[in-house]
């Protein structure tokens, strides 16, 4: 039966060049793999350090009381609340503006028009501006020019300007990922652009837009520089009574007790860092979960 197989058994043998290629291939795979693993190390170390040094400080009381004894003891309640305020109000400002801008850019703006290019250029550059420059802009624009003073409102608006480009880009990408065929189907039935956007494009782009927004929560919560000059205070003995008051914030509080206040027990700054990190982690995890959940329900 198989008599032919033996006679041509010298075909398809590896030659030296093939062996060398295989070795290089193996080496490249190992080197790249090691680099990828290296990426995990800092994250793991940060989490371990924070947990190890910060967890003794964490308690219900830590989260719900004011700092005391010149900020060398007590809790972080006003800073935690302040961060929530700042993030909420900044999103209130940046989300409607950013999503509206993204809808315009994606659905209405004529491609290759000079205005579209200018807007795109502005968005990209705004995303590249260092946060300390945003801080100075906020100081000049919101605190001084619009006479908002150093206040929650001024700080939130500064954060909003900082997060705006990412909200725009994330929303734009998400709108662009809705297949063109859906839009054509709608237009061919006589739907206006807005009807198309409202009934078909937005519902399908919502996942990506939400994810983009949620990721900005963690970014806004973690920023120190933009709020330092515009509305966040080192220490306040009382809670803000409105958006024109100053507030404490977690990120700035961490900076303050780590660098400005002598004699703070080590576990307190690490505790603050752990809380801040925890918020960011929870928010990001929620965003990833939300994206996966909504994506699993969406099929076309």
């Amino acid at each position, binding site marked *: 039966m198989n008599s032919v197989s033996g006679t041509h058994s010298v075909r398809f043998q590896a030659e030296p060049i093939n062996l060398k290629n295989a070795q290089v291939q193996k080496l490249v795979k190992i080197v790249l793999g090691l680099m990828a693993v290296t990426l995990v190390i800092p994250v793991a170390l940060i989490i371990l350090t924070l947990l190890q040094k910060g967890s003794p400080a964490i308690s219900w009381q830590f989260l719900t009381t004011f700092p005391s004894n010149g900020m060398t003891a007590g809790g972080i309640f006003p800073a935690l609340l302040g961060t929530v305020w700042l993030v909420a109000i900044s999103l209130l400002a940046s989300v409607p503006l950013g999503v509206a801008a993204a809808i315009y850019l994606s659905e209405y703006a*004529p*491609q290759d028009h000079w205005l579209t290019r200018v807007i795109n250029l502005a968005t990209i550059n705004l995303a590249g501006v260092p946060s300390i420059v945003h801080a100075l802009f906020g100081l000049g624009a919101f605190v001084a020019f619009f006479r908002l003073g150093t206040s929650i409102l001024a700080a939130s608006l500064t954060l909003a300007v900082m997060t705006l480009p990412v909200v725009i880009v994330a929303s734009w990408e998400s709108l662009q990922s809705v*297949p063109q*065929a*859906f839009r*054509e*189907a*709608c*237009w*061919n*039935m*006589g*739907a*206006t652009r807005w*009807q198309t956007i409202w*009934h*078909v494009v937005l*519902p*399908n782009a919502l996942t990506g837009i939400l994810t983009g927004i949620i990721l900005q929560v963690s970014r806004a919560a973690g920023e120190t520089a933009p709020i330092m000059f515009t509305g966040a205070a080192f220490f306040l003995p009382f809670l803000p009574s409105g958006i024109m008051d100053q507030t404490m914030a977690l990120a700035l509080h961490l900076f303050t007790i780590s660098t400005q206040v002598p004699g703070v027990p080590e576990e307190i700054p690490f505790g603050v860092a752990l809380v801040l990190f925890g918020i960011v982690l929870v928010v990001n995890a929620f965003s990833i979960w939300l994206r996966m959940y909504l994506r699993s329900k*969406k*099929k*076309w």
Partner: protein
Amino acid sequence: MNIQENQPDIAIRTVSLNLWYGQFQALFDVNLEIKQGIITSMIGPSGCGKSTVLRSVDRINERLGYVRITGAINVLDKNIYDVDVDLAQLRKQVGMVFQRPNPLPISIYDNVIFGHRIHRPPGSKLHRDEEDGIVEAALRRVLLWDKVKDKLQRKATLDLSLEERQKLCIARLLPVKPAVLLMDEPCSALDPKGTAAVEDLIWELRGEYSILLVTHNMAQARRTSDECVFMLMGRVMEHSKTDDMFVTPTRRETADYIEGRYG
């Protein structure tokens, strides 16, 4: 005056239609008369301009921005490039069926009623029963009702076959009572069985709608159309009864194309 007499018997009439995409001229002096109530197919090699003609009739082309047109396209004796033409009203009268079935990612029910809803005067709300009736009538018309009546609230993009999707795409045009149906290779994504089913449906709709069908499939043109237009390099070469064209084409180019000497 009788309404019947008022109706022109030409559904689409193009008059010296020239069209440029930027610098490239895609249509040259196209004069077509597409009769009402019958099926007219357009054949020709890729890039000959048949889809361009189709896409000009519901003015979806101009969305590209760099399209320039001279001449006129009269739909039901009205030049659709007149300044007083409203695009929404035009597209209500002229429905388009695409190459790839593109049901919207909403329920089957909502797909069918979508067009009707967006063309309703603001504030007026139809009773649920009336909407149900419209949806059922449209789905029955495209021979899809029995297959989907138990899953009307399921997403149309989930578990319909391509054939069923294409039928749904035709069904959603019907509630707004279009006069003209444009079909851009409606069967080219379907398997032979689906193709046969959709062809049957197109034949079913004959008489009630004026149908302009672009196809690459010569057998399909022969099977399903009353009249046939052969285009080549942006020009109309021949327009005659389908049977005549396929049996005794008057032009050499037509004969060569039909016999598959180029394509």
